[in-house]
């Protein structure tokens, strides 16, 4: 789960990690007022669920409140397209107005899960403010990685070694040690899959400060953080993806016209792959869960059909223990309810598969059945001509 930069900074700040003075604005008038409060010269930052905003025109240094207001007007409602958003971009609805800070040095600092060791690792570099992936590729020696043992946690001496490697000395080095220890606390307390400060800076006045911040929460941990759903900015998400989330379905909008409903993430990915192989373009990824139920199948079907791009539907359910006649019933109910006339191809496997197929054939829907994955993909592509 994503949150905005300003929310991430609020969390860091509550763990004694210094961030620039700032205000969140929802209108261009608020941007102006906030700019006045900062003394005129300030930084305007569009809040969207994606990085790469700077190059896309989402971050700007302004010199007086009127300029801030004009820029706010320009940004609000605009769709920012960055390398991380996809071609349609993300709409700006919130703007962070921050004091302008004189920067002496920039660093990169993050903590994330290292899958290879199954532990959290701290990553730091003296090359801050840039794309860390690029640094990692071009000059890996400039990246310092520390794997954290969950038994001991992050220890001050380990953090100190990193701070020294970044070239920090004296009390600034000790400040950085404390900052890193606090950052690890954030990861644990808030169940973060990523906390990233890029850049972490030393100001001209000699203070450490998180100039930008990114936090991702572990979706699996939302059950113990009641506040997380309220922190979500639903305007940053696809409406269909939000609906799917309500029914615990995993849905991702794609650019094609064949709606796909599959049980299980791996099989769903494989289904998209095979559809493309036969010349079809999937409209979505949708996993109804390994043990698909009638209710979930019905809801999933409705979500797929709400997407105006969908011209046909490919259902691939390897029921296994689930009965195919029950799944078929769910499909028929949902399709009838929304008066679906689009071509549907259903490939089912599992118990009572013949009964399931018969139900579909007798349903009066524009539906064909298939016996295998390849046959199903071929058929839906044919039906769409």
């Amino acid at each position, binding site marked *: 789960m994503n949150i905005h930069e300003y929310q991430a900074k609020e969390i860091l700040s509550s763990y004694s990690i210094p961030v620039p003075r700032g205000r969140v604005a929802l209108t261009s008038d608020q941007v102006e007022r906030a700019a006045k409060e900062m003394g005129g010269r300030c930084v305007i930052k569009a809040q969207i669920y994606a990085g790469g905003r700077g190059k896309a025109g989402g971050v700007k240094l302004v010199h007086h409140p009127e300029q801030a207001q004009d820029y706010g007007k320009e940004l609000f409602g605009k769709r920012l397209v960055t390398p*991380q958003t*996809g071609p349609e971009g993300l709409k700006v609805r919130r703007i962070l107005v921050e004091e302008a800070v004189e920067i002496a040095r920039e660093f990169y600092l993050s903590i994330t*899960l290292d*899958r*290879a060791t*199954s*532990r*959290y690792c701290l990553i730091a570099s003296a090359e801050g403010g840039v794309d860390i*992936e690029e640094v990692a590729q071009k000059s890996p020696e400039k990246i310092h990685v520390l794997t954290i*043992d*969950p*038994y001991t946690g992050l220890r001050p001496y380990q953090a100190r070694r990193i701070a020294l490697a970044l070239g920090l000395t004296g009390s600034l080095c000790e400040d950085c040690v404390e900052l890193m220890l606090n950052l690890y606390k954030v*990861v*644990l307390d808030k*169940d973060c*899959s990523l906390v990233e400060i890029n850049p972490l800076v030393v100001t001209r006045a000699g203070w450490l400060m998180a100039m930008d911040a990114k936090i991702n929460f*572990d*979706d*699996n*941990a939302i*059950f*113990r953080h009641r506040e997380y759903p309220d922190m979500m900015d639903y305007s940053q998400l696809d409406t269909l993806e939000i609906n799917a989330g309500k029914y615990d379905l*995993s849905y*991702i909008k*794609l650019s094609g016209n064949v709606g796909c409903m*599959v*049980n*299980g*993430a*791996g*099989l*769903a*990915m*494989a*289904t*998209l*792959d*095979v559809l*493309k*192989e036969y010349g079809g373009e*999937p409209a979505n*990824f949708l*996993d109804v869960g*390994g*043990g698909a139920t009638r209710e979930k199948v019905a809801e999933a079907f409705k979500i797929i059909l709400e997407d105006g791009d969908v011209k046909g539907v490919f259902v691939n359910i*390897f*029921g*296994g*223990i689930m009965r195919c006649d029950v799944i078929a019933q769910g499909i028929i109910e949902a399709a009838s309810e929304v008066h679906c006339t689009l071509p549907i191809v259903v490939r089912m*496997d*599992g*118990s009572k598969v013949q009964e399931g197929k018969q139900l579909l054939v007798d349903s009066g829907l524009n539906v064909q059945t298939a016996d*295998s*994955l*390849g046959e199903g*993909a071929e058929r839906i592509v044919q039906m769409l001509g």
Partner: protein
Amino acid sequence: MSILINRDSKIVVQGITGRSGLFHTQQCRDYGSKIVAGVTPGKGGIHIEGIPVFNTVEEAVRYTGANVSMIFVPPPGAADAILEAADAGIDLAVCITEGIPVRDMVPVKRVIQQTRTRLVGPNCPGVITPGECKVGIMPGYIHKPGKIGVVSRSGTLTYEAVKQITEAGLGQSTCVGIGGDPIIGMQFIDVLRLFNEDPETEAVFMIGEIGGSAEEDAAEWIRENMKKPVAAFIAGVTAPPGKRMGHAGAIITGGKGKAEDKIRTLGECGVVVAPSPTKMGAAMLEALGKK
């Protein structure tokens, strides 16, 4: 012969009184698995479906000699359930539970590495030795006893693969679903090593997906150590970067975890990679030189 489980495995079900716990307990027992005990804290002393329920795994092991645990405990208590199984000296813990937070799994993995207990999962379909024992949620009827070892990060895609392998006239020695989470117990390599040493396993089919580098690591290991033919399929060739495809672990980030890189590496290490999910059975035959 088989790996991990066989007809002598004695199974305790943690979370047996929950809806899916009970349902799958019955399914496994119908398949022939020896379910000797259940564990649900606070319900010790009762019998459910004729199976004695205990408050702790330690008690279940002491009274029944259980050596395999199947875990259905919901996410908030699942990490604790795995640790409890390990503490009770269980040989194999199979955790079916989906949705365990990473923060809970980091210390669990750390502990498991230092015990004799093997962990399969979490978020996995389980383990089956066809015709002998099923510890998990997979449909038993698609499997056939035989000599192909199957190891997979996926659930239903594994069923698809097994079905194709069975239709190709081949049976399976044991099928292991290692799970789709970022932190899991046994990795591809751990399972491959067991298959390599199992005299009854003649060849292996491996099913991977986008995200992480477990498939690449397995490929290197296969090149160095594997004495038996291996075929594979990698799901997600067409997956867009930055989008999490269902599994918490299935995401391409920062150019890492792409299907094409995994496929290339596996191919370079002598693995026959199925070009399409419709050709998994065919790839297995090709690896065996029967095509």
